[in-house]
C-alpha cells in the first residue's frame, strides 16, 4: 500500500530530523557505529578492538574465496560491476527484470548458481566472508540505494517500511520501538543502536555469535527476541526490509564489516 504521507527521500530526511532533535549534539554520521555512538565506555573498548578487529580473518578468507575461480573458469568478478570492488553501497538494488529486491548476499549466490556452483548458506560462513570482503573494499563510499521509477520497487520499499514500523511477536515490538523510540537507551545491559546508519556496517562479527554473520541473521535474531517466528533468510520480507533500512542510510559512509558485542 503506497504511503500517502511521504516519498522515500522525505522519509529519509524526516528520520534525520527526528534523530537531530533527539540527539542535538550528535554528529548523525556517528550513528553508523551503532550503539558506540551513544555508549562512551563501550565505544572505548570497541576502538581498542579495532586495532586487531575480529572480522579481519573473515575479510581475508572472503578475499581468497572471492578470487577463487569457479569450476567453469569464471569468478565473482564476472558477475558484478567494477569486478565486485567498491560496489557495496549499491545494494540492495531493485532488479526490474525479476521484479524483486536483490541484496548483495542474494547476488553472490545468484552468481554462483549462474556459474554452476551450489549456493552457500545464507547466514554465516563463506557467504558472509565474501560479503565482508566486498564491504571492506567499499569502505568510505556513501550508501546509494536507488528506488527506480517502477511501482514494484516503491511497493517493495513501502513493504519494508511497513514491516519496520509494525509491532509483532508475543512481546509486540516493532523494530522502531527499540531503534527509534528507544535508541540510545538501555535494554537490559545493552545500549540500543539507532535506525539511522543501521545498514552501513554489515556483515558484522558479533561476539555473541563468535563469527561473522549477515544482516539477515540479525533480522532472524531480532524477530526471535520479540518472540516472532523468524522468516527464512533472504525471504521477500527480509529483502524488502533491508531495502527500506538501507535507503534510510543513504548518504552515510559504509563502514563494514564491523564488530559488535
Amino acid at each position, binding site marked *: 500500500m503506497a504511503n500517502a504521507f511521504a516519498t522515500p527521500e522525505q522519509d529519509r*530526511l524526516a528520520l534525520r*530530523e527526528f534523530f537531530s532533535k533527539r540527539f542535538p549534539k550528535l554528529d548523525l554520521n556517528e550513528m553508523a557505529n551503532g550503539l558506540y555512538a551513544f555508549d562512551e565506555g563501550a565505544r572505548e573498548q570497541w576502538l581498542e578492538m579495532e586495532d586487531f578487529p575480529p572480522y579481519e580473518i573473515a575479510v581475508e578468507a572472503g578475499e581468497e574465496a572471492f578470487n577463487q575461480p569457479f569450476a567453469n573458469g569464471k569468478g565473482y568478478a564476472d558477475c558484478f560491476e567494477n569486478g565486485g570492488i567498491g560496489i557495496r553501497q549499491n545494494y540492495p538494488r531493485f532488479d526490474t527484470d525479476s521484479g524483486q529486491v536483490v541484496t548483495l548476499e542474494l547476488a553472490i549466490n545468484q552468481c554462483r548458481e549462474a556459474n554452476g556452483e551450489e549456493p552457500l548458506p545464507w547466514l554465516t560462513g563463506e557467504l558472509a566472508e565474501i560479503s565482508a570482503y566486498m564491504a571492506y573494499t567499499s569502505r568510505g563510499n556513501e550508501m546509494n540505494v536507488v528506488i527506480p521509477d517502477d511501482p514494484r520497487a516503491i511497493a517493495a520499499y513501502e513493504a519494508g517500511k511497513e514491516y519496520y514500523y*509494525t509491532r*509483532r511477536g508475543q512481546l509486540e515490538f516493532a523494530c*522502531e520501538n527499540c531503534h527509534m523510540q528507544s535508541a540510545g537507551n538501555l535494554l537490559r545491559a545493552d545500549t540500543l543502536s539507532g535506525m539511522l546508519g543501521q545498514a552501513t556496517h554489515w556483515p558484522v562479527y558479533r561476539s555473541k555469535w563468535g563469527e561473522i554473520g549477515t544482516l539477515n541473521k540479525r533480522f532472524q535474531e531480532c524477530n*526471535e527476541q520479540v518472540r516472532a517466528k523468524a522468516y527464512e533468510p533472504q525471504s521477500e520480507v527480509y529483502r524488502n526490509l533491508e531495502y527500506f533500512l538501507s535507503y534510510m542510510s543513504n548518504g552515510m559512509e559504509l563502514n563494514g564489516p564491523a564488530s559488535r558485542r
Partner: protein
Amino acid sequence: MAADQAESEPALAGAQETLRDAATRVQLWTTSDQLLQSAAEAAASGDYDLAIRQLEEAELHAQLALATAEREKTVWQKSVPKPDHP
C-alpha cells in the same frame, strides 16, 4: 472427563492446520511451534489432557498474532516520522 488419544490426534491435526493457515497471513509467535511440539510430546506420553490444553493455547497464540497484525494495519503509520516541511 479425561481426554484420550482419539481426541488428541484430530485436535493436533486441527491445530497444525490452523497454524499453517495463520502463517500464510501473519508472522506467528515462536510460542506456537513450541506449544505444538510440547502437545505432541504430551500426547506421546499419554497425557492427553495436557496435550489438548497446549493445542488450544497454540491456537490462541495464533489468533492473538492475527489480531495484532489486524490492529497494526491501521496504526503503524502513526509511528513514521513526518517531515517538518513536506
